[in-house]
C-alpha cells in the first residue's frame, strides 16, 4: 500500500517537473505557432545560473529561483527581438533557427563554464523528508510540486483573468484581426516568448539540485516535453496539465518495472500510436478535416 502511494508520489514529482518544462513550450507554441527547440537550452541556462549564483556569489537557493526566472526570461526576450521576429510565417525555419540558438547557447556555456558536470547543493532545510499521512515525502519534491501548482495557477490567471490575457487570446485566435483592433502583436509575442523562456529557466533551476548540471542536460527534458505537448494537444492549458500528469505517472510506473530508458521508449511508442488515432491530442475536440 505504501509502495503504491510512494510510486504515485514519485510519478507526481516527475509529472510536475515535466509540466514545468512543457508549460513554457506549450504557451510559446500556442500563441506564436513556434516550436522552440532552444527550450531545453533555456532550461540548462537556468541550472547554470543557479550554480553560478550559489557558488560564486553565495546566494541562497530560493532567491536564486526568482532571479533565474527573470534572467532567462530576459535572454528569451532578446532572442525573440533579434531573431525569431524575422521568421513568423515560416514555421520550419523557426524550428531551425531555435535549434541553432540552442547550439550557440550550449557551446557558449561549454566554452565558458567548461564541459565537466557541475553540482548544485540542495539547501539544508529541504534535505530531510517530511512525515505526512504516514509517508516519508522528500521536502524538496514537495517544493517542486508547490512551485508547479503556483505557476500553473499564475499562468491560468494571466491568460484568463487579465487584460494581457484577453489580448493574448485575441492574438492566438486571429493575429491579423487582433492587429486591426490595435493590439500590439509584436509586444505580445516577445513577452510570451520571454515568459516561456523564464519558465524553462525556472524548471532548470529546480531540477539542478536533483541531477548534475551539464551543457547538454536540456535535451532529455525537452524531448519528454515534446511528448507532453503532442499528446496533450496545444492551445489547451488543461490538456498540457493533464497529459503531463498522465505521462509523468506512466513513466514513473514503467520505470518501476523496467528502467528509465525502456520506460521512455515505451512512452514514445504509445504517443506515436495515440497520434495515429487522435492527431489533435487527447484533449482537443476534432474540428475540420484537412
Amino acid at each position, binding site marked *: 500500500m505504501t509502495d503504491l502511494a510512494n510510486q504515485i508520489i514519485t510519478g507526481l514529482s516527475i509529472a510536475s517537473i515535466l509540466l514545468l518544462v512543457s508549460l513554457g513550450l506549450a504557451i510559446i507554441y500556442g500563441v506564436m505557432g513556434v516550436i522552440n527547440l532552444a527550450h531545453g537550452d533555456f532550461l540548462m541556462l537556468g541550472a547554470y545560473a543557479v550554480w553560478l549564483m550559489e557558488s560564486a556569489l553565495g546566494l541562497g537557493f530560493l532567491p536564486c529561483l526568482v532571479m533565474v526566472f527573470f534572467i532567462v526570461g530576459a535572454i528569451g526576450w532578446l532572442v525573440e527581438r533579434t531573431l525569431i521576429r524575422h521568421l513568423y510565417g515560416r514555421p520550419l525555419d523557426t524550428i531551425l533557427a531555435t535549434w541553432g540558438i540552442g547550439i550557440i547557447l550550449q557551446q557558449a556555456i561549454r566554452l565558458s563554464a567548461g564541459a565537466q558536470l557541475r553540482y548544485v547543493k540542495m539547501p539544508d532545510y529541504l534535505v530531510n523528508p517530511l512525515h505526512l499521512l504516514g509517508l516519508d515525502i522528500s521536502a524538496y519534491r514537495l517544493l517542486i510540486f508547490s512551485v508547479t501548482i503556483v505557476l500553473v495557477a499564475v499562468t491560468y490567471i494571466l491568460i484568463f483573468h487579465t487584460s494581457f490575457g484577453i489580448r493574448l487570446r485575441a492574438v492566438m485566435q486571429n493575429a491579423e484581426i487582433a492587429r486591426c483592433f490595435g493590439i500590439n502583436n509584436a509586444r505580445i509575442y516577445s513577452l510570451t516568448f520571454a515568459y516561456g523562456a523564464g519558465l524553462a529557466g525556472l524548471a532548470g533551476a529546480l531540477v539542478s539540485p536533483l541531477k548534475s548540471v551539464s551543457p547538454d542536460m536540456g535535451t532529455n527534458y525537452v524531448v519528454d516535453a515534446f511528448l507532453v505537448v503532442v499528446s496533450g494537444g496545444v492551445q489547451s492549458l488543461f490538456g498540457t496539465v493533464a497529459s503531463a500528469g498522465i505521462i509523468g505517472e506512466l513513466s514513473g510506473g514503467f520505470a518501476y518495472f523496467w528502467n528509465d530508458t525502456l520506460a521512455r521508449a515505451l512512452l514514445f511508442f504509445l504517443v506515436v500510436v495515440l497520434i495515429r488515432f487522435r492527431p489533435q491530442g487527447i484533449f482537443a*475536440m476534432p*474540428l*475540420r*478535416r*484537412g
Partner: protein
Amino acid sequence: MSLLELKGVEVQFSGFRALRGFDLSVAAGELRCLIGPNGAGKTTALDVICGKAQVNGGDIIFAGQNISHFEEHRIARLGIGRKFQVPSVFRELTVKENLHVAFCRRAGVFANLGISAAKANADELEKLAELVGLKESFRREAGILSHGQTQWLEIAMLVAQDAQLLLLDEPTAGMTAAETRKTAELCKQLKGRHTMLVVEHDMGFIKEIGDVISVMHQGRLLAQGTVAEIESDPEVRKAYLGSGGIRGA
C-alpha cells in the same frame, strides 16, 4: 437521373449547424448556380461534397455511390474537382507544373515515377494554358500571377484534372468587369463537357451563365428555379433583407 444528390446533409462545427438538412440534386451536364447571403453555408456545401468537411448526417450520392465518408483523394478520383473561394494553387511551382500536378491520370507513387515531369503531356498542358490566357506565363512561377490569373489557373487545373463535376466557389470574386466577362465565356465553354456547381454573388454573371439557380439560407435549400422565378420569390427576398437585396449581395 441526377449525377449528384445531397439528402438531408448535416454539418456541425463544434455545435454550430452550418448545414441543416440540406438537399440538392444536380443532373449530369447541368450548370447549377448556388447563391445565398453571407454565411448561408454555400462554401460548406461544396466542402462537404469534396470531403473537406465531415458529414454529421444525411447522404451524398455521386454517380450512384454514397461518398459521404470517403477520403478527399478518393472523391477526387471519382471525378469531382474543386476550386476554392480563396484561390489555391501551388505558388512555388510554374504554371505548367501546376497543370501537370492537376493532370492526374494515375495516382500511384510508383506509377508516376516513370513519368517525366518536364516532358510528359507538355503540348496538352500548353493548350490548356492558352485556353485561360496564361500561355505567356506558362513557365513562370504561379506565385507571381495576378489574382484573376490565379483564379483562371485554378479553373484550368480542374479542366486538366478532367473532373466530371466541377465545384467552383466564387470564381469571379475580386475580378474586374472585363475579367468577369472572360470568366463567363470560359464557363460557357466548359458547360456541357462538365457538370458544374457554381457558387456566386454576382447576379450579372449568374444571369449570363446559369439555367437553374438554387438559393441557400441558414444551411437549408430555400428556393430553386430560373432567375425570374427566384427574383420574384418572397421567401428569397426576406432572406436577403438587410444584406442589400439580391442584386447587391
